[in-house]
């Protein structure tokens, strides 16, 4: 018995890789098909939940209002004082450009309204607020 065991351990068998590859392929397909790629955002935004949201095109002007009150226009940071000028510059191409606003759900609504006032001051007309559907949960 002892001798037999020795002999077996001395001759290492190749690990069967086929089942491993099969499982990894299934996981790969799940992530490729089930999810969708999203552009990296420098700030994390917890989107508000709403049921009436529609799938709309994301506009060329993307304004993000982060939890700490930072304002980002197309991934560049602006302050409350400079954001109007930036939006005005973005709208110089076409004043009808869609402005997509991503605001954190836990923010004060007044901060959002202040931003809306600045967008209005910059001449923005077409606005949309990004939400997430309630089915996913928070």
């Amino acid at each position: 018995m002892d001798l037999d065991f020795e002999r077996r351990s001395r001759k290492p068998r190749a690990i069967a890789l086929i089942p491993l590859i099969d499982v990894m392929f299934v996981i790969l397909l799940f992530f490729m098909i089930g999810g969708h790629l999203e552009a990296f955002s420098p700030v994390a935004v917890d989107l508000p939940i709403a049921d009436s949201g529609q799938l709309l095109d994301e506009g060329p002007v993307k304004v993000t209002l982060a939890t700490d009150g930072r304002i980002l226009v197309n991934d560049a940071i602006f302050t409350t004082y400079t954001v109007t000028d930036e939006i005005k510059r973005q709208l110089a191409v076409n004043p009808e450009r869609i402005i997509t606003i991503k605001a954190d759900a836990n923010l004060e609504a007044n901060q959002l309204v202040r931003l809306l006032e600045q967008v209005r001051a910059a001449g923005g007309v077409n606005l949309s607020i990004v939400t997430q559907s309630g089915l996913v949960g928070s």
Partner: protein
Amino acid sequence: MEFERRTRRIQELNLTPLVDIILLLVIFFMISTSFVVSDSMELSLPSGKADGSAQHITRILIQPSGEVVVNQQPMDGNALNSHLANLLAANAEEKIAIFTTPGVSVQQLVSVMDMVYLTGGKNVQVDKVEVPYGS
């Protein structure tokens, strides 16, 4: 003869590089995919100055407690829903202005907007309260 013998002996395929690449792809997709579906809500801005039709606007004031005041009449979420349904059944083009007070979160504002859109409202404006309102 030599050639014959070689074909008979099939070499085993080395699968390790394939596994390496698949593992990298799995990690890439695991990190970069998101399962959150983001939607958008359209929003119109207040026109700034009150125009002649200002008396036909339904004003909804949101309070931090989650209660709403519609035309100076306090009500809860369910009452607001039925009130909006009646209002929009009478006039689908009814202008609705939503006002926020300090302490109201974006989620509360979006929830009220959601309710208006779901009951069929279209003309929605958002503004914040400048002066003490409803007192």
